C-alpha cells in the first residue's frame, strides 16, 4: 500500500514551473490571483504596463487603485516574474492582453513535468509528514484524554450517553455564509446606509446599518454569524461575551439600538424617523470602529465612492459579473464551449476575446448564434466572426468622442491609455445579400477609427470595443468605462431594437478554461489542479492510508472483530436492553410473543410444547392459561400501563420460558422424520 501510494504521489508532487508550459500558465488567471487586481491594488507590480496606465490616472477616482498610484508615484516596480520568465510572454491570455503581467503565484506544485523530475517535492512531502505527525500527536492526546475522562472510562456504557440520531450543533456550520447579512464589507455597508439616509430612506438605512454592524462583529470574531440566528440572539450572545470579559462592554447596547430599529422597519412596517435612524447609524458606526469611522461618515460619501462600494470590487472577473447584475442583467458564466451555443443560453453573450481566444469554429458558432437573433458584446477584436468590421489598428489620437446612439444617450466616452485599438471600417458595403447592416460607430477617435462599433447581423447584433483592455479590472476602475459596459447593450435594445429580453440574460465568456475545448485539461491531474482539488485529494489519500494501516485494508478479507470490539458490541446490546427495560416495553413484547404462539399453536399445542420441554402437565396448563389471560386482558384494555420493575422482570422470565419451550418443540419436530 505504501509503495503504491508513493508511486501515485511522486508524479503528483513532481513540480516544475515549466510544467505544462503555457497551459498551466494560462490557468493562473484565478480570479483572486488576477494580475489585473493586483496591478491595481498592489504597488510595485508590472513595470511594463505602468507608464500606460499612469497616464490615465487622473480619470480614476482617488479612492481606487492605491497600488497603481503608489507605483506611479515612484514605488519600485517589479518586473513580471514567474517560475519561467520566458513563459510569461508566450501564449498566456494576459500576455495577449498586454496588461499587467503579475508575478505568478510562487507555489505551483501541482503542474507536472514527466520528463524532468524535480526532487524539490521532497520538501513538500516532508511538510505533509510533519503535519501528519502533529495531527497524530494531537489526536493521540485527545484519545488518551477521552479514554481517561470521557464516556465509558469505567467500562459500562451510560444510558444517557447512548448516541442520538439527531446530531448536535455543528460548530463548523456556524461559519457558513450568511444570506441575510449582505456580503459586502462592513464599512461599505455603513457608507451605503449613510447614503440611504441622505436620500431620505431611513428604513433602508437602518437595515443596512444592521448589516454593517453584524458584519463587522463577524469580521472581528465577536459573533459567529449564521443564517438560523436572529438579531436578538446576536445581541444576547454579545452581551454574554461582554459579561465574561472577553470583549469590551457596551457593544451589545449599541447593537440592541441598531437591531431594534431595523426590526421595527422590517417586521413592523414602521419607517423610523430620520433622527432615530441617524442614532442607529451612529451606534453602528461606533461598533465599526469608533471615531475614525464616524469621521468618515461625517465626510459623507460622494456618488463616486458609493459606486466604488457597489461596483468596483477587487475580485477580477467577479467585478465584471457584479457590474452586469447592477445593471439588471441575470448573469451567468459561460461554462461550455462557444461551439455549443444554444438559443436558450442567453440574450447577450459577452466575450473577452483576448482572454478566451476563440477558435475559428468558435467564431463561426458565435456568428450563427447572433444571426438567429441574439446579441454578442466582444471586448477586443471581433473580426474573426464579423469581418464586416474591417481591421483593427492602433490609434494615437488620444481622444474619444461619442457618436450615434451613444451621443444621444449622452454617454461619457471611455478612457483608455494610448495607444489603443480601433476598427478601421471598410469603405464599401460588405454584405451583398442584405442580411448584415452597416457598421455603426458609437465611439470614435480623432482620426475616424471606431473605438466601439455596433452592427446588425441577421436577426441579432454585434457590439464590439476594439481595445482588448476595455473590460479589464483596471479599466473598470474608471467610472465611464464601467458604465459603458453595462449600458451599451441596453442602449442598443432601446434605440436599435436589439433582441434583448427584459430582464436581460447575459452570459460571460471570460475564462479560457471554461469556454474553449482547445484548452481542456489533457489529463485528470491537470483537471484536478485547475479545480484546486489536488491538495484535497492528496490529503484524502494520505488520510485513507493512515486509516487503512490502522483499521486494515477496507477491501481485504473479512475477519472477526477484535475482542475489544465484540465487548463493545455486547455492551451496546446490553445498553439497548436496559433502554427497553426503562421504557417498560416488556409487557408489549410478552403480549406480542405469546399472542403469536397462541395463534400458531393454539392453547393445546402450546401446552403440549410446554410438557415436551419438561414442564409438568398442570404447570404447563397454568402457564399457558396465564399467557392467554394476559393477551386477552391487554387486548381489552387497549392501553397498557407501564409495569413496575418487578413486573417487567417477571415478564422477561416468562418470555424466556416461552422461548425455551417453543424452541424445544421446534427442535423435536425437526428431528422427527
Amino acid at each position: 500500500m505504501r509503495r503504491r501510494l508513493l508511486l501515485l504521489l511522486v508524479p503528483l508532487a513532481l513540480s516544475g514551473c515549466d510544467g505544462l508550459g503555457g497551459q498551466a500558465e494560462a490557468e493562473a488567471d484565478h480570479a483572486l490571483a488576477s494580475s489585473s487586481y493586483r496591478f491595481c491594488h498592489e504597488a510595485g507590480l508590472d513595470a511594463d504596463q505602468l507608464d500606460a496606465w499612469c497616464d490615465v490616472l487622473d480619470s480614476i477616482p482617488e479612492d481606487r487603485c492605491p497600488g497603481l498610484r503608489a507605483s506611479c508615484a515612484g514605488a519600485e516596480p517589479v518586473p513580471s516574474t514567474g517560475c519561467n520568465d520566458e513563459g510569461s510572454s508566450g501564449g498566456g491570455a494576459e500576455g495577449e492582453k498586454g496588461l499587467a503581467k503579475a508575478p505568478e503565484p510562487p507555489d505551483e506544485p501541482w503542474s507536472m513535468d514527466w520528463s524532468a523530475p524535480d526532487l524539490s517535492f521532497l520538501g513538500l512531502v516532508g511538510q505533509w509528514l510533519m503535519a501528519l505527525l502533529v495531527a497524530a500527536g494531537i489526536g493521540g492526546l485527545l484519545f488518551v484524554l477521552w479514554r481517561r475522562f470521557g464516556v465509558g472510562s469505567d467500562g459500562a456504557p451510560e444510558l444517557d450517553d447512548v448516541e442520538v440520531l439527531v446530531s448536535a450543533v455543528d460548530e463548523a456550520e456556524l461559519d457558513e455564509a450568511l444570506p441575510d447579512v449582505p456580503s459586502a464589507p462592513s464599512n461599505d455597508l455603513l457608507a451605503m446606509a449613510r447614503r440611504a439616509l441622505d436620500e431620505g430612506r431611513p428604513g433602508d438605512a437602518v437595515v443596512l446599518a444592521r448589516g454593517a454592524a453584524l458584519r463587522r462583529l463577524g469580521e472581528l470574531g465577536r459573533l459567529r454569524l449564521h443564517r438560523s440566528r436572529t438579531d436578538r440572539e446576536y445581541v444576547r450572545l454579545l452581551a454574554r461575551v461582554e459579561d465574561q470579559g472577553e470583549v469590551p462592554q457596551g457593544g451589545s447596547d449599541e447593537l440592541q439600538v441598531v437591531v431594534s430599529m431595523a426590526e421595527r422597519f422590517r417586521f413592523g412596517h414602521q419607517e423610523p424617523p430620520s433622527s432615530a435612524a441617524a442614532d442607529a447609524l451612529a451606534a453602528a458606526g461606533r461598533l465599526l470602529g469608533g471615531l475614525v469611522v464616524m469621521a468618515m461618515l461625517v465626510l459623507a460619501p460622494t456618488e463616486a465612492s458609493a459606486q466604488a462600494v457597489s461596483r468596483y470590487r477587487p475580485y477580477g472577473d467577479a467585478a465584471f459579473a457584479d457590474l452586469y447584475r447592477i445593471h439588471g442583467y441575470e448573469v451567468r458564466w459561460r461554462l461550455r464551449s462557444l461551439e455549443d451555443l444554444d438559443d436558450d443560453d442567453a440574450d447577450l453573450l459577452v466575450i473577452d476575446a483576448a482572454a478566451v481566444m476563440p477558435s475559428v469554429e468558435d467564431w463561426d458558432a458565435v456568428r450563427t448564434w447572433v444571426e438567429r437573433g441574439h446579441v454578442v458584446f466582444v471586448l477586443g477584436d471581433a473580426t474573426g466572426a464579423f469581418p464586416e468590421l474591417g481591421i483593427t489598428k492602433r490609434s494615437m489620437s488620444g481622444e474619444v468622442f461619442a457618436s450615434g446612439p451613444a451621443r444621444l444617450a449622452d454617454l461619457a466616452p471611455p478612457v483608455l491609455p494610448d495607444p489603443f485599438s480601433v476598427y478601421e471600417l471598410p469603405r464599401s458595403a460588405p454584405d451583398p445579400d442584405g442580411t448584415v447592416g452597416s457598421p455603426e460607430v458609437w465611439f470614435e477617435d480623432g482620426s475616424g477609427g471606431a473605438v466601439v462599433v455596433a452592427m446588425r447581423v441577421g436577426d441579432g447584433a454585434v457590439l464590439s470595443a476594439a481595445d482588448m483592455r476595455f473590460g479589464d479590472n483596471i479599466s473598470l476602475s474608471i467610472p465611464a468605462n464601467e458604465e459603458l459596459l453595462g449600458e451599451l447593450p441596453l442602449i442598443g435594445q432601446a434605440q436599435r431594437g436589439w433582441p434583448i429580453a427584459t430582464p436581460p440574460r447575459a452570459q460571460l465568456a471570460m475564462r479560457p478554461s471554461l469556454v474553449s475545448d482547445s484548452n481542456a485539461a489533457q489529463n485528470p491531474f491537470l483537471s484536478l489542479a485547475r479545480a484546486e482539488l489536488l491538495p484535497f485529494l492528496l490529503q484524502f489519500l494520505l488520510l485513507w492510508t493512515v486509516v487503512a494501516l490502522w483499521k486494515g485494508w477496507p477491501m481485504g478479507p473479512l475477519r472477526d472483530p477484535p475482542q475489544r470490539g465484540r465487548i463493545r458490541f455486547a455492551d451496546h446490546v446490553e445498553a439497548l436492553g436496559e433502554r427497553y427495560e426503562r421504557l417498560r416495553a416488556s409487557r408489549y413484547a410478552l403480549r406480542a410473543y405469546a399472542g403469536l404462539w397462541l395463534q400458531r399453536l393454539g392453547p393445546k399445542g402450546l401446552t403440549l410444547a410446554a410438557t415436551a420441554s419438561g414442564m409438568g402437565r398442570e404447570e404447563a396448563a397454568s402457564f399457558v392459561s396465564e399467557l392467554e389471560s394476559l393477551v386477552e386482558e391487554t387486548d381489552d384494555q387497549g392501553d397498557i400501563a407501564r409495569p413496575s420493575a418487578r413486573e417487567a422482570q417477571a415478564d422477561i422470565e416468562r418470555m424466556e420460558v416461552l422461548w425455551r419451550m417453543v424452541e424445544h418443540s421446534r427442535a423435536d419436530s425437526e428431528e422427527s422424520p
Partner: protein
Amino acid sequence: MEDGGALEGGLGGVPVNTLSDAEALAFKERFDAVTSQVSRVVLGQRDVVRSVLVALVAGGHVLLEGPPGIGKTLLARSMARVLGVEFKRIQFTPDLMPSDVTGGNVFNQRVDDFVFRAGPVFTQILLADEINRAPAKTQAALLEAMGDRQVTVDGSTRPLPQPFFTLATQNPVESEGTYPLPEAQLDRFLIKVLVGHPSKPVEVRLLEHYLSGFDASDLDAVGLEVVLDAAGIAQLRHQARRVTVEAEVLDYIASIVGRTRHHPAVDLGASPRASIALLLASQVVAAAEGRTFVVPDDVKELAVPVLRHRFLLQPDAELEGTRPDDVVRAILLDVPVPGGERGAAL
C-alpha cells in the same frame, strides 16, 4: 383555539386593525403585573409562569411535565387568584371515570327527574393534576372541553365558562402506572413546559420564604392582588390578535413546522394546528414585550415548547435517546431566519 387560526388581517399577514404602541405598552404592563404577582408565590419559575400566561392569553392550554412537588398546583391556584377567576382541580387516578370530569345526569327524587350535576370541568382555570395517571377514555373526556370549550353529556351540550383554561400536569412517561396521552389530546395543548427541580439558590430562597411564614395552602395570607379579570383576559386576547405579523415571519413558521414532517427522526410531523399555535403564541409574546409586531426571535423562542409534544418520533430514534427537543432545535438550526433581503438588494 376556538378561532381556528383565521387571521384577522389582510394581505401579507398584516392585521387590518393593528395594535398601537400605547396599547402594546398597556398590554405589557398588565402582563408583567400578573407575572410579578404569581412570581411572588412561585419562586424561581418566572419563565414557567410567563409561558403559562402566554398560553392563557393565546387561548390555549398548557401541559406541565415534571416531577411531583415543584409547585405546579401552587402555580395554578395563584394564577387563578391573580386573574380573579374560578379555579378547580382534578386529581387524575387510574379509576377516574369520564363522568367524574364532565359531570353527569343523576336522578333527583325530589323533582322526579334526571338533573345535570356539573363536573369540575365547569370552571375557568382547571388544574388536571397528573393527567397521565388516568386511562385513555378518561383523558378523552377532556378533548371536547379543551377543543370546543363545551361539554356534551347524554346528547346535551353545555358551554364552559369563559375563559376556560386547562393547566394539566403529568409525570415523566417513564414513571410507573402512567398512560401516555393520545396524540389528539397532546395536540390540544398550546404549550408543553418542562419543569425541573429548582436550583440550590432558589431552593434556599424557597426555604426562607417558608421560614418567614409562607403557607402554600393559605394564599389569602400572602396578599396576592387581583390584577386582571375575565373581561381583561378577553381584552388581552383581542389585542394580541392585532399584533402585526410580517409575511416572511409566517413563512418562517410554516417552514419550521413543515420540516417536522420530513425530519428523518420523526414518524408523524406536526399538524397545521401547530403552525396556528406558534403564530398565536408569538403574537402574545410580542405584545408582552410591548411590541406591535412579531419578530423571528419570538417564533424561535416558542418553537420548542409549542412543538415538542406535537409529533411522534421514530421508534428507533426514541430508543436511541433522541428527544423531541433535539429535533426541534436541529430544525431551528436549519431554517434560515427571515429578514435582510432589502439590505441585500441595495
